[in-house]
Each structure stands twice: as C-alpha cells, then as structure tokens.
C-alpha cells in the first residue's frame, strides 16, 4: 500500500473541528471521491474530531491518503489522552451519550465509513481509526 500523503493536525478548539473538515475535504478531492463519499468522510471526521475535543479534552488527528493497486482511500486516526471509554459496546450504540449530544458520534460515523477501529483504555485515552475507499 502506498501512502500519498501523511500529516497530523491538533484538535484543541471548535475552530479546529472546522479545519479538520476542510483538510478531510481536500484529501477526498485529491483522491477524486464522489460528492456523496466526500460528504460522508468529512461528516465522520467532524463527529470524531468533536468527540476527541469534548470527551478526550483535545487530541490529534492523522490524515493519510492511500493507494492500494487501483483503489484510492483516506485513513484518519483520532487520538486523545482523555479518560477513555469504560464500555465500548455501550458507547457504540445509537443514542448513548455522556455529553450533551445525541449519541450519534461513534455509531453514526461508523456507518459512514468502510473501516472502523476503536481502542480505548480507561485513564489513558482513545484511538479511533476510520477509512473510506473510493
């Protein structure tokens, strides 16, 4: 698998969520995603960036533009050093929320991508990796 682009960006404020959306859009355009696919990956990125900010107390996102044979894709990895998620199964259910939101962040963004992976350790933080392929 070839990596066409690889960069990281901090998530510290709600302005950074907007920037994460913009960078994700740029990458999706670079990978010639369709408009619907662009919208899905940008929306998923927005949800996960907000999670990292609100539940993780801020963090970082790594953007990768990938190519595997003729397939082009984007992989995003969100990392925070927050309190972690004690019950992942529960956190992935629609409507489960500890914040003021609707509890669609994790479960919803999972539906918008092709690959979804989450690792969380209580007291250490959470890492969510998503990928969408063209």
């Amino acid at each position, binding site marked *: 698998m070839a990596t066409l682009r690889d960069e990281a960006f901090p998530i510290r404020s*709600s*302005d950074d*969520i*907007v920037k994460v*959306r*913009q960078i994700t*859009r740029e990458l999706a355009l670079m990978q010639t995603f369709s*408009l*619907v696919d*662009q*919208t*899905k990956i*940008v*929306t998923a990125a*927005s*949800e996960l960036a*907000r999670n990292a900010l609100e539940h993780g107390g801020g963090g970082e996102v790594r953007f990768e533009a990938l190519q595997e044979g003729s397939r082009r894709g984007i992989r995003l990895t969100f990392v925070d050093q927050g309190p972690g998620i004690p019950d992942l199964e529960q956190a992935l259910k*629609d409507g489960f929320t500890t914040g003021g*939101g*609707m509890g*669609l*962040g994790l*479960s*919803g*963004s999972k*539906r*918008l991508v092709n690959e979804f992976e989450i690792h969380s350790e209580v007291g250490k933080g959470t890492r969510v990796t998503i990928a969408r392929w063209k």
Partner: protein
Amino acid sequence: MERIPILKMGKVLLVTVQVDMHDRLAMTLQDDLTARIVKDHAHGVLIDISSLEVVDSFIGRMIGNIANMARVLDADTVVVGMRPAVAITLVELGLSLPGVRTALNVDKGVEMLKGSMEQRASANGHATR
C-alpha cells in the same frame, strides 16, 4: 464576534448560513434567532442551508433545537436548500431531523410559511383573545 445575519421580511426571519459553522457560531445563532423572534414578533423562520456542504450531528441538533424553540415561541420553522449529499449523509448518520419542516428552496419555503400563517390568522379570527 462573528455572527450569522438574520434578515426580516414581514413576519418572517430569514437566515442564510453561508459559512462552515463552528460550534460556537451555531450556538450564537440559536440565541440570536430566539431573541429576534420575540423582538420582531416573527411568526416564521426560514433557514437556508444551501451553502452548507456538511451537516453533522451537532449542526443537525442545533437546527432541531431552533425549530423547537421557535415553535414554543409561536413561530414556524422551515429549513430549505439541503444538498442531496447532505441529506444522504444525515440519514445514514442516524439523524432525520424529526419535527423540522423542510422545503426544496426559499420560494417553496416562503409558500409553506405563508400557508401556515394564513391558517393561524383564520384560527385567531375565531378565537377570543
């Protein structure tokens, strides 16, 4: 501070969201709009989101909140101009904006609001106030 402008057209308030909204801006709009509904005695709110390339769960919730708050303040809300890709993504995300009326464009939205305001006028004509 950055704000989204709110225009008054008769009894209707028109909001055109033209920037990629950060969360604080969305919250400010919620506050500004509810204040204006009361101040301007508005009976309708039209929110044009045709420039929005992304509506995530936060912005979606803000739109739902505005519609609910407006209803409690005796005003109807219609959201117009949602892009097809945004609609597809919203539903897949699990957000179907219950309780929010939508129309394809501003013209249709204005018609919708006029209709409900006429109904309101005829209902009030028979009611003792």
